[in-house]
């Protein structure tokens, strides 16, 4: 093995419930703005996507029509990231760029599903009814608009990212592993530059149903993550597309690209959560692997607000009382696959702006931090499984 290469984050693209782009997000974070809709899916709460004209990053209407909302959000954010890194349209680089997308699937055609379910039960039909209705009612292109690897496919088609293309699945853990594998490939010289990220549309009744099976949805009104408790826990689905361009320092320097920050480490685990305390233990075991040099730094977590997980994460955080903690769940809701990429993006953004954004927490668990952060830890603990951490640091020039 040759020496590990330093990996920089040179591009950030965010489209979310707070708007699009880095300035809009920085302003919203500093204004402690949160965008929720508690009417449309009441009693459930979602963070709706801010108004956006997709034409700016997906110029062909035909391409937009071939995508479901989550793919449009992701393809848009990927375009922002490529712009931010200054590689948009650079065929030489895009043609050898790695892409790792953490993906779920797309939204069902709810009216079609409802008509089928009602018809099936009303007429006490058998499976033949299902064949007929599916053959007649499913839009042929819907399949591709839902298919997990077609977010990456659309990014390739729209933006020309066409080196390698891998789609990881598996909820929150897929976002952690996308960053981890891209980092490992670049550090070891298997790759020079990568685009990683994820997207979620939170305004989806089919997702609400899936999470309701496990009683994961927040009800009873919005509350910041640390104010949720055993009696009122869970998450509000968030809407966000988050992509990062990562590259080796030498590759970035050769093309004159400036870093937002460097990504020093990504570590992950699959705790056996049947045992109480497993998440706390897992995070404790990951912490020393990160290489954090000071206990008075900053930490951005995607804590979901699901009590049995977040309470264990909080127990871990309480062992590091010097850390200034920020919760993305409070601000953006839970963005599942995008949870970890969002944490990475906000960590890199904060380091590049020389400040951590202010706390947004009436319980006082999140404390002010006035000095410029040089290290920010990103934590992701999945709502049902998967734990990970990353260390984002200021680049030493």
């Amino acid at each position, binding site marked *: 093995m040759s020496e590990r290469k330093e990996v920089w984050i040179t591009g950030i693209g965010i489209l979310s419930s707070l708007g699009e782009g880095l300035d809009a997000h920085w302003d919203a974070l500093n204004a402690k703005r949160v965008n929720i809709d508690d009417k449309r899916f009441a009693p459930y709460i979602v963070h709706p996507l801010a108004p956006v004209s997709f034409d700016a990053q997906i110029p062909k209407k035909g391409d937009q029509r071939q995508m479901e909302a989550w793919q449009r959000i992701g393809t848009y954010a990927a375009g922002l990231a490529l712009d931010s890194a200054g590689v948009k349209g650079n065929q030489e680089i895009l043609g050898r760029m790695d892409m790792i997308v953490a993906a779920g699937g797309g939204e069902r055609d709810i009216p079609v599903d409802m008509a089928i379910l009602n018809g099936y039960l009303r007429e006490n039909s058998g499976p033949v009814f299902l064949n007929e209705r599916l053959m007649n009612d499913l839009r042929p292109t819907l399949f591709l608009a839902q298919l997990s690897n077609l977010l990456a496919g659309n990014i390739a088609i729209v933006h020309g990212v066409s080196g390698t293309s891998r789609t990881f699945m598996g909820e929150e853990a897929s976002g952690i592993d996308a960053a981890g594998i891209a980092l490992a490939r670049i550090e070891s010289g*298997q790759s020079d530059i990568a685009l990683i990220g994820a997207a979620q549309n939170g305004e989806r009744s089919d997702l609400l149903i899936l999470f309701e099976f496990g009683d994961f949805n927040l009800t009873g009104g919005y509350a910041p993550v640390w104010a949720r408790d055993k009696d009122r826990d869970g998450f509000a689905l968030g809407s966000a597309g988050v992509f990062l361009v990562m590259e080796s320092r030498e590759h970035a320097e050769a093309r004159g690209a400036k870093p937002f920050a460097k990504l020093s480490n990504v570590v992950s685990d699959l705790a056996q959560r049947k045992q109480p305390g497993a998440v706390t233990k897992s995070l404790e075991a990951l912490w020393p692997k990160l290489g954090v040099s000071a206990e008075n730094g900053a930490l951005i977590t995607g804590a979901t607000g699901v009590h049995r997980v977040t309470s264990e994460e909080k127990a871990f955080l309480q062992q590091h009382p010097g850390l200034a903690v920020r919760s993305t769940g409070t601000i953006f809701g839970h963005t599942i696959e995008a949870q970890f990429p969002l944490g990475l993006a906000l960590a890199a953004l904060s380091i590049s702006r020389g400040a951590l954004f202010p706390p947004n927490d009436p319980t006082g668990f999140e404390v002010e931090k006035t000095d410029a952060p040089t290290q920010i830890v990103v934590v992701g603990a999945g709502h049902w499984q998967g734990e990970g951490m990353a260390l984002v640091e200021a680049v030493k020039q």
Partner: protein
Amino acid sequence: MAPPRDKFGRPIVVVTGMGIVTSLGAGKADNWAKLTAGESGIRTVTRFPIDGLKTTMAGTVDFVTVEPSSSTGLTERLAEIATEEALEQSGIGRKGDFPGPLFLAVAPVETEWPQRLEVARAIGKSDFEVQDILKISGGGKFAPYHHRFMFGSVASYLAETFGTKGSPISLSTACASGATAIQLGVEAIRRGEADATLCVATDGSVNQEALVRFSLLSALSTQNNPPQAASKPFSKNRDGFVMAEGAGALVLESYESAVARGAPILGVVAGCGELTDSFHRTRSSPDGKPIIGCVRKTLADAGLEPGQIDYINAHGTATPENDKMEFLGISAVFGDQALKIPVSSNKSMVGHTISAAGAVEAIFSLLTLEHQRIPPTINYEVPDPAIPFDVVPNKARDAKVTAVMSNSFGFGGQNASLVLTREPI
């Protein structure tokens, strides 16, 4: 003894265990016997009614059933069966304690119709809306369905059952998924992160909606009778692929670690490569450049010239588009030799196992090396003059095979190839 590193100084990656399930049967012995006898596993679907469907056959694995029935449940069980076989052959680790990470190729997951209907029935009124479903979904009554229909559920089950280390990675690169899982395993060993990786690819998703979806894309063969003759790769009268189920599992190890523990060395993953096609969601770039690039990258990764490949295990789906593009790509790289190298498609017999195909076909490629016998392309009665491959028509053939290329080209522009050899090169 060969040096433990390849010509690029990387750890050599060998295969020390393989397990397979397809519509032909469970296990390497059964599959290989039937595959080389030119048997088809394609049959008329009996799992659900076929009335009203344009395509009524598939390569279903009917000898494995799960309760409660779901495609994701079957997908998980197939992976488990294949993994057990691979681990037994490899003899690595201890039961429930595999000393490395898991890379799993698996189909995207969503709530399925039987479960949707069960929840809808519980509403207890007619003319309900989606809000009515939401209202009764919580409270624990359907709690197992959250778990079942998480994308990470199959990997999580396998990781727990076999004790793989770290965060298991579930991935989808459509029809190339199986090859991608192997590629991720190879890369981890080459980086020195692991001495062993478990690479599994599985697909049990022949259900009504999945069949209809591919049917609506006009991707499936409609030559339903007889079902065994439907899959006709490289034939002029080919008209689409046949959906199928299966799983393949491979234990990959560094050569050094395999030799140190006296493990069986079944073959070498000498090279892997991928290149994305940004042309269209379901069609290949007409100039074939991404396929050509993928094949060239893979040869370069293995450090081989085209002339050193003795057999190509084709993607060979039997769609009009794929087979034509595959010939274009292979002939661009291999030149005149493309007409001489045997190129056969396992999919003529087992159908297209989609997410599993890359691993299933890598295993068949390794068995080809082991037995020095090339499985045929069956149903080859009407050659396509535009595809003058030697497809090993209808009958298996003994041959000297030292290096095999296995190709996977999928929806979303996903191209991945592997080079497998018997010995380290």
